């Protein structure tokens, strides 16, 4: 009884203290990140640097060390990350440009906003390729090859745009038009595996592709999008030639053919009412995400307002 009473008392005191302590002091930045293993995190960690260190880098032991602050909140979904940032005045996070909506405010990086021009001329630094992966070990099945042909034709342009991504460096004319075969090649279902970031894009493309042949997309595709790494694994283990893998990071692996699909930007977002920052340099971004900069007030703004 005595134990219970004192514990209860202690708890009340704890709550009270934290309440008093927190309500009057400026709040620290809440860093919201994706989980290790997601394509977005991998791309972001590999690009954000203060000139010396990257958020993820190889250390003196030859191992990958993550410099992301320990107090970061990890979210496993783009939407969850968005909700986190949208509901916290002091939050900062990053996600695929295609997933950004009006519930958050987007920052410019190095003075550039993520738009087609800035992406294609490279002035917006946080960009990554969306890649289609197929196995190198055996020829693709007729169906998968035909779908790949579709993905590399100009028909894919509308889907890319609808998803908020950009076709790299090539004009419209560079892409061949897609002409359906006389009949849908027979065979098993095409297995779509990989990044969740490409979900919107690939599903609408798949739906339209099925429409070309007048078949139900469910009879044509088996979709399991659980992350770029899963997709990579599926392609590596492909034994039927039916797997189309989707990656949201660049792919360099022995057994894999990588086909560039389009470019995506990683947007850095804050709470919509947070006007303490508008533009960040890569180094400032690094300092925030590694925990060196703990308050928005510590970032000097204004001089480079664009």
């Amino acid at each position, binding site marked *: *009884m005595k134990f219970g009473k004192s*514990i209860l008392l202690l708890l009340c005191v704890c709550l009270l203290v934290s309440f008093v302590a927190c309500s009057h002091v400026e*709040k620290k930045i809440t860093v919201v990140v994706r989980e290790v293993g997601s394509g977005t995190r991998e791309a972001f960690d590999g690009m954000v640097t203060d000139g010396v260190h990257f958020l993820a880098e190889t250390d003196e032991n030859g191992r990958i060390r993550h410099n992301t602050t320990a*107090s970061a909140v*990890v979210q496993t979904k783009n939407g969850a990350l968005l909700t986190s940032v949208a509901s*916290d005045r002091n939050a900062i996070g990053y996600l695929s440009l295609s997933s950004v909506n009006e519930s958050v405010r987007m920052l410019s990086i190095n003075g550039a906003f993520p738009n087609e021009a800035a992406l294609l001329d490279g002035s917006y630094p946080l960009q990554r390729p969306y890649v289609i992966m197929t196995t190198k070990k055996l020829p693709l099945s007729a169906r998968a090859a035909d779908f790949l042909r579709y993905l590399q034709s100009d028909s894919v342009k509308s889907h890319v745009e609808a998803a908020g991504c950009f076709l790299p460096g090539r004009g419209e004319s560079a892409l061949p038009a897609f002409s359906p075969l006389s009949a849908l090649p027979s065979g098993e279902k095409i297995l779509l595996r990989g990044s969740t970031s490409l979900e919107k894009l690939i599903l609408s493309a798949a739906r339209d592709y099925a429409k070309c042949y007048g078949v139900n997309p469910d009879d044509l595709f088996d979709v399991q999008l659980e992350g770029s790494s899963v997709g990579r694994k599926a392609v590596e283990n492909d034994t039927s030639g039916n797997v189309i893998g989707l990656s949201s990071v660049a792919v360099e692996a022995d057994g894999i053919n990588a086909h560039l699909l389009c470019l995506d930007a990683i947007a850095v977002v804050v709470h919509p009412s947070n006007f303490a920052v508008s533009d960040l340099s890569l180094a400032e971004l690094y300092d925030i995400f590694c925990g060196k900069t703990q308050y928005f007030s510590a970032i000097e703004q204004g001089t480079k307002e664009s």
Partner: protein
Amino acid sequence: MNKVRVKEFLGKLIFGGAALFCAASVIAIFAFLVFKGFPAFQKIGVWEFVFGDVWSPSRYDTYDAPLSGYYGIFTMIVGTIAATAGALLIGGILGYFTAVFLTFFCPKKLQGLFASVIHLLAGIPSVVYGFFGISFLLPLLSLVSPNNGSGLLAASLILGIMILPTVTALSQSALESVPQSYYDASSALGCSHAETVFRIMIPAARSGITASLILGVGRALGETMAIVMVAGNSPTYPKGLFHSFRVLTANIVMEMGYAGEVHEGALVATGVVLLFFVFLINLLFLLRSSKAIREKNKKTSVRKPIVRQALLPHTPTLGRLLSVLSAAFCSTILLLLLGFILFRGLPPLLSRRYLLFGKYEFGGAQITLLPSLIATLMAVLLSLGIAIPLGVMTAVFLHEYTKKNSLAVRLIRSAIDTLAGVPSIVYGLFGVVAFLPLFGGSSSVLAGSLTVSLMLLPTVVRTTEESLAAVPDGLREGSLALGAGKVRTILRLVLPSALSGIFSAVILSIGRVIGESAPFLWTMGSVMTAIPRSYLDSGTTLSVALYQLAGEGWHIEEAYATAVILILLVLSLNLSARAVIGHLKRKSTKGKEARSR
């Protein structure tokens, strides 16, 4: 005559085979986990793995190249211990006082009501608790916290509420088993009700209450989905009440999908470490309960020191107050949870017919829950179809065929008890490393159902065994004395008499399949897709769908609606279970119209 012998032999063979299968599956689970985790232990080094505090896995790591990532789970071990301690502090104390209230201070009229409140709290799926956490608790806590509210406090609160029913139910039965004569004796000396309760009854039930707390700890250790939604999950030490941290179970469920070779091994090894903790707790529980039994037999146990005697006069009134407050808190939580989710979820559920009945559209923007409902149904059917017969046959073998204390039986029984303590995420791990490769590496309803049926086995065996033990021996003797064989006795008499118990095992199992999400996530599929057409297709159960919808954040109204459906399912299961079990009991005891042929 030979026919009877053959029948008897076959019966024994089948029942014994089921029991053996259960034992074998336990061995298989551990063998697989150790087999898959051992290379990781070896590669990373046990010391670095357990006591390293950097977790930055690399997908490029293979067993035959130098490591490029760090695999240390000490931060998560600390996180797990901290969250469990917090849960014990909140859920343990509240549960204990609620049990005291229910046993001694609750007006008779309200007793049934409170019992069903506790029942319901126990039945609500953990992912619904997690969802309640992110949609209600976190915004509330963020008012006072320096971050979005996630961290140790939120995790402890949610976990605490989750273990509360376990602690309450077990403490209550411990309190109820204190002989009434103690109470009478104390009252006869002129002690008030409250004094008697706190000075005589509760101290007498102390071992039982401790055991209930230990079991609560076991539950908190293994909890996955709720805590993953509120803990923040960055792999660091919990450096305060509001600091992102990660627990062992979360580590597994978050990264299983991505894991490369060594990474996967490290996650399995995380499961092994988790199991180690669970066994430690189980061992503690066993020691405690055997101590409780010893105390009861000896009837001598040393009572409190004098210091506490001096403090006691104050406690009865305070204790009474606290117990009333705890019970009020429990009901408030339940009302809050139900109210909040129904309030937010019912309108979209009612106004959007496509949510339930909409046609699934490939890559469409509209979410329909029909595929999840069907996938859930398929999983329930198959996993119960496997677990119920196997479990019942095992229970029959253990209870009807074996001598109580033979070595084989003790082994099988302890294997099953062990299985009961294994956290559901570990079953998920087992499913991934054992079942997925069987089906070409991709998840399917079949793999998910197989995984979960293993998880159901111990519950089914235990519940059935209890109901078999409740069948009077007179029935068996009567039948055997007529010259009926064992198989006939079991099939015609014993099992029909144990029907209510078997039925409650069925209901419990359905509830678990519907409520569990951790074992399904990586075995059955985590992407909401089309209606599965066969058991080889993948699919999401409703709970997994809720986890996905809540985590994605795009379809928050749909998430509320899913939570409403889950809660309604649990509620109706609860009610129907009561109705049917009550009916079966009445039928077997009073005996109105029995069946005739």
